[in-house]
């Protein structure tokens, strides 16, 4: 394992430091390798973003913060604080209850997909897919993406929809997207 892990580390070290920049979506203009933010993880980006403090709190409650500091990579669609405020307070409180950790984990893993996915990647897939693209979540169900004007929307099974805000922030272990809704399964 040592050799393999060393190789993995070497790959990481080969990346230069960088800020949270938009990521190219294909290899044609793949500067991502050169300026990837290998000093940041999904967890650290979420923790540093005041607009994601609510989501970050939920991730910690579900013990997924350490997961999102790990190798990944994952792409996470994290509800903004404003989005979380649309949930009934008692629901949020219930989800933070230790006994509700499985439910909270299920909800949050439904906001996580494998790999690094940028908004540009999603937009391209939507165009190629005739207006729709799907990504399987770590909860096992599908998120459906579509365009709405210049924006990209994401819809969870059951119909909960949110809009992606910005281009996403890249980390060494994935991409963080801020969404304006909570992808509640109902």
């Amino acid at each position: 394992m040592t050799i393999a892990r060393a190789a993995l580390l070497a790959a990481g070290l080969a990346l230069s430091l960088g800020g949270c920049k938009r990521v190219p979506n294909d290899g044609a203009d793949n500067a991502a390798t050169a300026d990837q933010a290998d000093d940041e993880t999904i967890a650290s980006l979420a923790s540093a973003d005041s607009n994601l403090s609510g989501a970050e709190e939920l991730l910690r409650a579900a013990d997924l913060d350490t997961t999102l500091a790990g190798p990944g990579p994952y792409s996470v669609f994290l509800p903004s604080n404003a989005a979380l405020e649309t949930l009934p307070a008692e629901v949020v409180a219930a989800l933070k209850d230790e006994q509700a950790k499985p439910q909270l984990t299920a909800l949050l893993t439904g906001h996580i997909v494998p790999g690094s996915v940028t908004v540009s990647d999603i937009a391209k897939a939507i165009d190629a897919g005739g207006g729709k693209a799907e990504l399987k979540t770590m909860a096992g169900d599908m998120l459906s993406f579509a365009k709405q004007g210049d924006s990209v929307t994401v819809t969870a099974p059951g119909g909960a929809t949110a809009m992606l805000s910005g281009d996403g922030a890249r980390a060494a272990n994935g991409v963080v997207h801020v969404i304006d809704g909570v992808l509640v399964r109902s």
Partner: protein
Amino acid sequence: MRNIPLITGALAMALAAPAIAQNNGHGGDKGKGHAAGEMKAAKGKDRGPQGQARMPKPQKDARAASRGDNGNGNGNGKAWAKAPDRPDRALARDVGRVIGRTNDRDAPRYSDDRRVRDQGREYYRRVVEGRAIIDGCPPGLAKKNNGCLPPGQAKKLYQRDDRYAAMINGIPYRYRDIGQDYRYRDGYLYRTQNDGISSWLPLLGGALGVGEIFPQSYAAYPMPDYYRAYYGRDDDARYLYADRAIFAVDPETRAIESIAALLTGDDWTVGQPMPQGYGVYNVPLAYRDRYYDTNDANYRYSDGHVYKIDPKTQLVAAAISLLS
């Protein structure tokens, strides 16, 4: 938590098998690798899938033997059909057929498929009997006389009936009902109702979580070297895996210290269709200069590997290790 063999529960089960969401199947740890096409040659004990058709197979009598395979979501069902000699895989295939038509939360819609259901039930009896299922209260839930929830709290929770109900109602507060209305399989808890599945909840490792003791009954789960090499960062930790998650545990106490990784459990087999849900390019940023979509090849990432896809056929052309 204690685990008991599921015997009577299986016999009483009124449906083919627990639903698996969408048409992908979910679940478990792959426990299997991928035929190597463009595999980089990682040598030594960290062989992972490199240079071989499959990852090291789980021990025959381990839960992993069943979870590692039938826990896989495969997204197509064809991969399952490649291994008819594995009853657990055949079960998953049949489950996949059922689920493949619908949303599993709308289970009654497919409950009329009696042939598949009966077949699945038979498989279930054959395969699942003897496997552990969570009985009583899951980790983290105090056992009370009336189940896993203190009196009063249950009433409050159960009363909710709006779009948020699924988030806080029922499972797993209602683990107490397991054996009647609930089933756990391959990382998912299912509620059965009216000869169908009325609800489900993904539970990493069967609701295992940080601070819990990794169950001894899971001890036989072999952790593929590749996973440890890819996801394991702490040499002082021991890594164990259960349905759809890798846990870092204290080597001595087996107390779960963290959820080291989430796994899709999707089945990627060279020559088989790419699982559903990978329509978007998702290769890790660090590898995009090497693996990017062209007219001749697409690339997708899942569970520590990049897969080469034939754009025309959507078949998996090669599995690429990221550890070399």
